[in-house]
């Protein structure tokens, strides 16, 4: 019996005279053929049954965004998986070349939209390296608070949607309830729930209002109870363990070679955390642990992210205790806006305000790349400046993009339902992958 692939729909027939699938040369968009392939050799049928090619997405509840996975199945087992991305490609990097540095901050919210304020911080740190300025101590601590809050927010969404994919709906509601609390805090601070645009080059958009730290402390006090609740429900649950243990294993060497970072890499046993190894914002002065797994499977990734949330609460506690007084923004009128009261009363401040808003601050010629530990992995903004107010090149190093490229390796040999679990464990955000 000859093997056939059951295809859903085909524009070119791709079948020869006997009805067997044959290789079709791929035509590239500039008219040339990409690869020349010889016809396949005669195959002895050594497998019973046919392989099926199915398509998951791009519109699908469990793909966490617009991701398309084409799976070749032998029964229920995945033989090969080919991911297609680009369904959310919005030209971020192109637009960055036509916007000033402070304007680009609005775009950084939207790439990894679960970690908006963390992306703002990543970009601001890169821009400040490019400008060669040091931010104030208060700004550093506020940015640490922002990063850790957004880490908790992102992990809560991941947890909620991961639970839904496996089949547990309630932790999603608990997670989003906590997220609403963080939304309220952030809204009091910067005015927006999700797309925050909280940082500026040289400081923050606004200082925290009075009484905000009490709200933060209240959150720090009550959040661990929710985590304990979810922990009780999931971690030792037979169904949960049965559906996640042993799936999608990546060995440490493979994980490093595939460029994985963040909880994906740490679950495989490599303790690379940008906050510890290439620190920024004085992270080396905070006392926190980095959870590392030893099995490299989906269950370990869940445990690593869960523990990271607890460690984030620890960092938040320390940051809340050490928040110093002082200005949030640096005192350089060529780079950052003067306070409104001065801008409306002093002539020089008004001129500085005008120039910063209309022309934008101009960095010296150079380039910079500051990597941050986003909830997904190593994230950084590589920017190249030619001395003008708009960067020559703005490149986002997307952690989910590189993490997702390993999915064909991870799902090989697993069942179809495991594909969904493994996909969910990567914690992808299509906004960051496609930019």
């Amino acid at each position, binding site marked *: 019996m000859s*093997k056939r692939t059951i295809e859903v*729909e085909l524009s070119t027939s*791709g079948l020869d005279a006997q009805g067997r*699938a044959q*290789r079709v040369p791929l035509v*590239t*968009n500039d008219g040339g053929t*990409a*690869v020349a392939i010889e016809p*396949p*050799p005669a*195959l002895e049928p050594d*497998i019973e049954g*046919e*392989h099926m*090619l199915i*398509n998951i997405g791009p519109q699908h509840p469990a793909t966490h965004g617009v991701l398309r996975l*084409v799976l*070749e199945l032998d029964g229920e*087992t995945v*033989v*090969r998986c*080919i991911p297609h991305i*680009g369904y959310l490609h919005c*030209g971020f*990097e192109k*637009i960055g070349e036509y916007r000033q540095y402070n304007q680009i901050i609005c775009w950084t919210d939207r790439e990894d939209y679960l970690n908006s304020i963390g992306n703002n911080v990543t970009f601001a740190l890169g821009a400040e*390296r*490019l400008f060669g300025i*040091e931010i104030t101590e208060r700004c550093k601590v506020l940015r640490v608070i922002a990063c850790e809050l957004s880490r908790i927010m992102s992990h809560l969404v991941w947890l909620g949607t991961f639970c839904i994919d496996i089949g547990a709906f309630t932790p999603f509601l608990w997670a989003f309830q906590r997220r609403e609390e963080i939304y309220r805090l952030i809204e009091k601070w910067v005015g927006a729930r999700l797309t925050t645009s909280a940082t500026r080059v040289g400081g923050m958009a606004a200082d925290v209002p009075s009484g905000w730290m009490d709200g933060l402390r209240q959150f720090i006090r009550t959040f661990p109870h929710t985590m304990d609740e979810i922990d009780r429900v999931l971690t030792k649950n037979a169904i949960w363990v049965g559906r996640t243990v*042993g799936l999608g294993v990546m*060995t440490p060497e*493979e994980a*490093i070679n*595939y*460029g994985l970072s963040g909880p994906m890499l740490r679950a*495989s*046993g*490599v*303790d*690379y955390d940008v906050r*510890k*190894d290439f*620190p920024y914002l*004085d*992270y*080396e002065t905070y006392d926190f642990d980095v959870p*590392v797994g*030893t*099995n490299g499977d989906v269950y370990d990734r869940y445990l690593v992210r869960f523990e990271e949330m607890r460690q984030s609460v620890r960092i938040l506690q320390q940051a809340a205790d050490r928040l110093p007084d002082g200005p949030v923004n640096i005192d350089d009128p060529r780079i950052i806006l003067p306070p409104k009261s001065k801008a409306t009363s002093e002539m020089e401040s008004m001129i500085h305000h005008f120039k910063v808003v209309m022309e934008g601050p101009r960095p010296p010629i150079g*380039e*910079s*790349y500051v990597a941050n530990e986003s909830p997904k992995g190593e994230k950084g903004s590589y920017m*190249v400046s*030619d001395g003008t107010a708009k960067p*020559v090149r703005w*490149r986002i190093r997307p952690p989910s993009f590189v993490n997702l490229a390993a999915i064909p390796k991870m799902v090989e*040999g*697993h069942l179809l339902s*495991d594909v969904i679990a493994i996909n969910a464990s990567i914690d992808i955000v299509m906004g960051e992958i496609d930019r």
Partner: protein
Amino acid sequence: MTRFEVVRTGASASGGQPATQKNIPHRGAEANPSAKALQEKFRTAVTRVEVIWGETVAYIDPTAVHEAIRWLHDDPSQRYDFLSDVTAVEYRDAGVPIEVVWHLRSLPYRRFLRIKSQLEKGAPLEIDSVYDIYRAADWLERECYDMFGIRFTGHPDLRRLLMWESYKEGYPLRKDFPLRGRFSRSEQLRQALAQNPEARYSMEELTIADAFAELPQDMRERLNTGERTGE
């Protein structure tokens, strides 16, 4: 089930606990020792070494860059095992060549190195792929091809990644590509709606059934005996 040994970052690094860099000078900060080792090993192929804002950048000839990166990966005193990024930069000045940029990290030594290679714009934009050294280069190089049109020789499957395969407008991140694209909005929409995505499987997908014979022997055996992982 196997348990992995924890791989500690910075196991070979000297200098204790790393700290946040402060007050970094624009130029002239201490260079990454790998740059000097690269210059000693590859001499004229390394055209320039700069340290900008504390980051070491080594400019290497396009013909020698694959060998240099292979050496950086394999040599026990360098061990750049983590490829962070592959991207390209085109400058606004038309005469300046396009630069292909690699960001490498050495996790054992806790080092960061940027390698650049310059491609003249008049000639076809081609450079060696580092797919055989780092699997992370797979999609990173495909995206670079999609956005800039740079061909990476040796990459097994260089297709467009972010735009659809029959995208005709060009390479978006080139400076001669206008922000809103070359065609009018209705024409862009017409072309987009014509790219019936499900009917066009890639060559790889069409040939999967025939490629069963090319899967590794042990994998074929495992799938044939019905072995499933995870239990």
